[in-house]
């Protein structure tokens, strides 16, 4: 019994010491957190003052938004991470981009059957602006790209493929490798591409070119014109609007 008492006492003492250390550690963290909480409130006040003067500017001016985004990125802040963040709540910058996200999803869905889930950034911009109506704010290419990058996390295959001086927006979960991307970039100039062109420009074997083109056909992102004079041409419906003017739909 004597021994057990010592054992129990030792354990109890150790527990007390541990608790004391924990307490001190906790107190330290508590101080810091209290400080941060206070500074957050101060910052929120500054943000509110800024918003009361310039909130309109954010919604109205693509240039101002761009500048805003650059500065946020430079200091390591993502103003679009959460609708619950200060930036969204106080400045309203979130609503602009999240709503744009909805509009982008809807446009891409509506046109998917036609272009296989690939659309140029220009056409996307035109269609989104059309949907927003006459009195809505202007939307820049940069705005669209930022909204799309946020949509990626939803898992439905949103992605951005740089081509020419601009970009193609993917909205279906199709695997597009570097090979596919390069062929898309090649096709961007004329709206179509042939096996010979791929062989000549990219120095690929015929088999590799055919595989890539077949994949694009299967995904509905390319259409085959087997009746073309010299050799079959693979057309990208995503680029049709560019070539033949605006769609009437």
């Amino acid at each position, binding site marked *: 019994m004597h021994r057990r008492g010592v054992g129990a006492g030792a354990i109890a003492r150790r527990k007390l010491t541990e608790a004391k*250390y*924990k307490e001190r*550690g*906790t107190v330290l*963290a*508590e101080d*810091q*957190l209290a400080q*941060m909480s206070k500074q*957050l409130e101060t*910052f929120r006040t*500054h943000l509110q003052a800024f918003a009361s*003067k*310039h909130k309109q*500017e954010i919604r109205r001016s*693509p240039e*101002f938004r761009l*500048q805003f985004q650059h*500065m*946020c990125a430079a*200091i*390591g*802040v*993502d*103003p*679009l*991470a*959460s*609708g*619950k*963040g*200060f*930036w*969204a*709540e106080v400045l309203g910058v*979130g*609503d602009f981009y*999240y*709503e744009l*996200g*909805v509009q982008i*999803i*809807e446009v891409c869905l509506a046109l*998917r059957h036609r272009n296989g889930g690939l659309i140029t*950034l*220009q056409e996307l911009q035109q269609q989104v602006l059309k949907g927003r109506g006459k009195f809505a704010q202007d939307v*820049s*290419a940069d705005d669209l790209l930022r909204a799309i990058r*946020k*949509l990626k*996390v*939803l*898992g*439905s*295959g949103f992605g951005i493929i740089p081509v020419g*001086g601009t*970009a193609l927006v993917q909205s*279906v*979960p199709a695997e597009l490798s570097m090979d596919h991307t390069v062929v898309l970039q090649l096709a961007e100039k004329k709206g179509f591409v042939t096996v010979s062109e791929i062989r000549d420009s990219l120095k690929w074997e015929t088999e590799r070119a055919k595989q890539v083109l077949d994949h694009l056909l*299967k995904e509905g992102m390319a259409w085959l014109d087997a009746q073309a004079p010299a050799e079959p041409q693979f057309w990208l419906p995503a680029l049709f609007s560019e070539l033949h003017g605006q769609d009437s739909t």
Partner: protein
Amino acid sequence: MDRFSWTTGLLELGETLVVQQRGVRLSDGEEKVKFDSGVLLLSTHRLIWRDQKNHECCIAVPLSQIVFIEEQAAGIGKSAKIVVHLHPASSNKDPGPFQSSKYSYVKLSFKEHGQIEFYRRLSEEITQRRWESMPTGQAMQVNKDSQAGRIRAVGIVGIERKLEEKRKETDKNISEAFEDLSKLMEKAKEMVELSKSIANKIKEKQGDITEDETIRFKSYLLSMGIANPVTRETYGSGTQYHMQLAKQLAGILQTPLEERGGIMSLTEVYCLVNRARGLELLSPEDLVNACKMLESLKLPLRLRIFDSGVMVIELQSHNEEEMVAAALETVSEKGSLTADEFAKLEGMSVLLAKERLLLAEKMGHLCRDDSVEGLRFYPNLFLTQS
């Protein structure tokens, strides 16, 4: 473009050059014309455009013909532009490249930049109207206009002044806005530094921080949009906010899910929820983080991620594997189906139809025929007919 006249391009006596810019294209309203690549010159009296390749081709319009001007910012693949709105051509105008035009404005595209400076100078010249005080051969011609013309000009001057004032105020507002923005970002930067130092202290303490405090810290990071320095996540998964959101979603989505056969893609959910909210929308990350908590909160919905990466919300009562059995029947009846065909039959989205067929294939019930005609699924006869 019918307001332009052919000219030698030589400046008149009393006319001074203000600024010039290479690489400018002229358009008649929205339509491209053959004035693709030229030098644009601004004088005190006129706007002159000269073809870079053919110097003989030179046209000009008097500044007095300008009603007002606008800027169009550059975009990807598009140069910055100035839109110049013009009065109708006067009857005694010198001959030019166009007799008529359906547009009352022209566009100047600055393919080699220079738009900002040019716009500034052009605005100045239009405001100062130096051509009125420095008469040259050309200016005299304009003054020959009738009384009516001059009265109209006076009215226009009033409008122009108002526009100019508005522009100046907008400019002032914008520079003030940028200044305020810089100051704000300075303060935001301090918050980022503070959060880093706290994260470091937490790392040092190694578990001497309570779970409560961790949650608090995460919510502070969420407010500022700062990536968690410890875990690199930009969201605070497990915050109160996301827990509440998860519970809200369970309520909002019950009926829509039932109406859609028990399953919806996350993009569908995102659109549905945000359209319903109208304001204070959810970010995509908010939605994903809330959905990740559905199962642990024992809510009647769950998040499921397919092999393809496609994310869906299902009712707990929904059993995709059972749906596969029904899909197999449908495919067997029709002989074979593509995802598009199956989607139409079932009234499903193509995205989810494809996932179901892929799952059926994974489970061995269906076989694929992958050709350039498309991806088609057949009942797996290897399994059933042995």
